[in-house]
């Protein structure tokens, strides 16, 4: 009996994996994943050192010029892989440092919770030292004295692997005081969260790190000016930091060339796809790979389904259509189509899926995960869910769709404290644009109370 239980538990246990065999991955073309093993086992320190590990930080420490790291990162134009696409080098160049400035923090945003995203998990579970090396380089560049890996609480395996790898690195002299005899001090702790999507927003993350509710902070000041405990703090995504060692070791020109003539953005990217495809998965591909190429690697749509729409990089990106499959997936191109590259992990929607039901699911997520700090988000998103439920059940009222337009517009960029509500608005606005008819089919009732003109102020 116990044997059958344990085999059941093993058979459906989730394991993070890359769908690219070792033979197809090379140091010069796959900086993020070439070291990963086909058996999915962790690359511990010995193996990491055998595979060019800590070579980049060794060179940088010998060179002794932190500004050179920032310059290379700027030239390489490594754009933030957490979804916003902001140049990491530029962010680093804006971090306050100098004689009268206290040394600050280097924070890794490992709070991967964007629906449809499962890339940082792989990097942390199988190759912890690449992230650690990237963080030491980031700390050197930003004059940070301490680092945190802000890890979501559910990533239990990643926490175990990272903590053991941090111990290894500390024992080998890559963390702690006087790293590798350079005189530079830096150490890292894993901080595990306790749920809530909003913790991925960088200022909310800092509040959470400080032991407070994860409400976002006003910007400016930006974290680089005043972050954790008022000190200059840099927050970078896991994948962004994992790019750093190779960029510094091999240079900006090499990095830029990785994407060939596909796009202006350089480098490689962990792309992936989930939803009803034959082989959902992850691949490291040149930046600017098209949706069609990624879908082909996934074996196409499952069964005889056809593609109706897709999200290019998580729940907070806008819907694209099959006609967009041939666009290079980089930050600017996807932005021009009214969406965002986001995390670069595609979610596909099959033809038979109701867009109203899918939007209801997405907005239920955003409504639940709103921190409640500002009104358009706290009140607007549950209202949106209510309207979408009515439309899904065919009980919508005349005017509901226009109300959805308005609620989404009220959540737009600049109208709320952080990017959560704009993230909730983007899929809704694009769904209403491309599939308005489906929403209209849910309207069966006349205009109701919710649509009456409000009482004019002053006449109460």
């Amino acid at each position, binding site marked *: 009996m116990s044997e059958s*239980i*344990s085999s*059941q*538990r093993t*058979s*459906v*246990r*989730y*394991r*993070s*994996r890359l769908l690219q065999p070792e033979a197809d991955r090379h140091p010069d073309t796959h900086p993020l994943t070439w070291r990963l093993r086909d058996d999915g086992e962790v690359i511990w320190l010995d193996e990491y050192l055998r595979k060019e590990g800590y070579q980049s930080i060794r060179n940088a420490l010998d060179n002794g010029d932190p500004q050179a790291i920032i310059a290379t990162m700027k030239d390489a134009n490594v754009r933030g892989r957490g979804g916003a696409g902001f140049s990491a080098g530029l962010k680093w160049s804006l971090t306050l440092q100098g004689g009268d400035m206290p040394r600050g923090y280097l924070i890794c945003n490992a709070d991967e*919770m*964007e*629906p*449809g*995203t*499962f890339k*940082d*998990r792989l990097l942390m579970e199988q190759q912890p030292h690449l992230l650690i090396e990237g963080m030491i380089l980031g700390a050197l560049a930003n004059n940070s004295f301490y680092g945190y890996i802000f890890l979501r*609480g*559910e*990533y*239990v*395996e990643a926490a175990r692997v990272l903590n053991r790898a941090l111990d290894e690195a500390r024992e080998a002299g890559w963390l702690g005081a006087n790293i590798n005899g350079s005189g530079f001090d830096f150490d890292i*702790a894993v*901080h*595990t*969260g*306790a*749920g*809530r999507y909003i913790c991925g927003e960088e200022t909310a993350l800092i509040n*959470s*790190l*400080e*032991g*407070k*509710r*994860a409400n976002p902070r006003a910007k400016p000041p930006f974290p680089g000016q005043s972050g*954790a*405990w008022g000190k200059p703090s840099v927050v970078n995504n896991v994948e962004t930091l994992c790019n750093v060692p190779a960029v510094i070791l091999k240079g900006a020109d090499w990095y830029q060339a990785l994407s060939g003539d596909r796009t202006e953005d350089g480098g490689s990217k962990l792309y*992936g796809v*989930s*939803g*009803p495809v034959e082989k*959902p*998965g*992850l691949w490291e591909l040149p930046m600017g790979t098209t949706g069609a190429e990624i879908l082909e690697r996934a074996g196409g749509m499952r069964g005889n389904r056809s593609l109706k729409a897709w*999200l290019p990089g998580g*729940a907070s990106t806008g819907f694209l259509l099959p006609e967009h499959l041939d666009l290079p997936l980089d930050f600017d191109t996807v932005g021009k189509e009214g969406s965002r590259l986001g995390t670069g*992990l595609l*979610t*596909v*929607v*099959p033809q038979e899926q109701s867009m109203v039901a*899918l939007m209801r*699911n997405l907005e239920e*997520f955003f409504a*639940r*995960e709103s*921190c409640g700090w500002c009104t358009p988000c706290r009140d607007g998103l549950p209202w949106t869910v209510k309207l979408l439920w009515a439309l899904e059940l065919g009980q919508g009222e005349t005017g509901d769709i226009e109300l959805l337009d308005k609620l989404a517009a009220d959540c737009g960029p600049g109208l709320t404290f952080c990017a959560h509500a704009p993230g909730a608005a983007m899929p809704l606005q694009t769904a209403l644009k491309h599939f308005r008819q489906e929403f209209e089919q849910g309207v069966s009732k006349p205009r109701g109370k919710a649509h009456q003109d409000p009482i004019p102020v002053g006449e109460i």
Partner: protein
Amino acid sequence: MLEEVGHYEQPQAACIEALKIVQRRYGWVPDGAIGAIAKVLGIGPASVEGVATFYSLIFRQPVGRHVVLVCDSSSCFLSGFDELKQALASHLGIDYGQTTEDGRFTLLPVCCLGACDGAPALMIDDDTYGPVSPDDLPGLLEGYP
């Protein structure tokens, strides 16, 4: 708890970890723990309660011996979440936020588990499973007495 405090500039930062330490011991965070944590960290009980009630993985009421977190985000939604959730609820005889009568399982929804290539996914305590079909459930749950 004091060891955790050492990782941060201010003791308050250990608040979430302190709540988790209590939770590991008791399964949830009882009222008495709020004041006790506040005392250790040198902050007001309202700050601790504010944090305890904000985060979804801190439980301010008793839960079962095992907590089942079902991912209801988009990729799982597109890959059979509804069927899985229904099967789970009917197998256990409870809905979200409820605990089975024998105190064994509590069922809760969770943010995208980052296991989308294994959708639909769920977690039982510290273990992540996916893809999980309704047929897998009886065998899977049996592993958590």
